[in-house]
């Protein structure tokens, strides 16, 4: 299916940019006018993935995070990618409550939140190379207007 709009943004792994990434995805969605709930779900999932790249992917190092969004008539696909340290065991990482950083008050709920709020989630990662999260969501609110 042909997308109706697309964009990609690259930003530094600074925690200030968590809010930046949320505003960018909201601005990109403004043209299709999703419901408040749909927008909240997407902003939250983006926040989780970007935070993971910052704190787990890069840790104390600095690096670049890439967010790519493709908008379709009734859905959005979002890819968030880092070139950080990668995930050794993806199944373990995606288990609810698993976290490698309990001392940072992480709760291991990031992937669970992404899975719950989005319609699909896939994680691709290689130790020492980086991590790419791909999520998509259908807009139920827009189905009728097609």
């Amino acid at each position, binding site marked *: 299916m042909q997308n109706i709009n697309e964009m990609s943004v690259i930003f530094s792994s600074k*925690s*200030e940019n*968590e*809010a930046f990434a*949320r505003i960018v995805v909201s601005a990109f969605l403004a043209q299709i006018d999703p419901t408040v*709930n749909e927008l*909240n*779900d997407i*902003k*939250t999932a983006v*926040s*989780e993935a970007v*935070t993971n790249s*910052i*704190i787990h992917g890069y840790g104390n190092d600095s690096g670049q995070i890439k967010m790519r969004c493709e908008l379709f008539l009734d859905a959005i696909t979002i890819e968030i990618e880092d070139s950080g340290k990668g995930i050794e065991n993806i199944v373990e990482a995606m288990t609810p409550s698993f976290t490698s950083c309990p001392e*940072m*008050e*992480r*709760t291991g*709920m*990031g992937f*669970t*939140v992404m899975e*719950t709020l989005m319609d699909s989630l896939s994680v691709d990662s290689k130790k020492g190379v980086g991590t790419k999260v791909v999520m998509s969501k259908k807009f139920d609110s827009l189905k009728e207007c097609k």
Partner: protein
Amino acid sequence: MDVTFDFFKDNLVVHISGEIDHHATEVLRTRIDKKLISEKSVNMILDLSDVSFMDSSGIGLIIGRFKNVRGFGGNLALVCKDNHIKRIVSLAGIEKIIEICNDIETAVNSLKIKNKKTAGL
């Protein structure tokens, strides 16, 4: 993000406003813990009524404060009306250990009951 404190019937009330993400929790944690140590209040109410956004970093913030307050022998209650935030909170099963109330009055009452139980009354 902003945080202000006041007291309501001996409970330390922490009003958080704005967005709670990982960036915000670093500051919030320090400020709340400092206040908790300086005041000798044992009970804390986290008032999220004016929070416009929260991701799982907020779950960590809540559970972390809960542990600290329990460490002092106290209890913690949440005030939250927003459905999106309630959903994030309930994903982690927080409502099994922490009361989620619609307003501060209710939170105060629930803490009174909890404290009696904790004290074995």
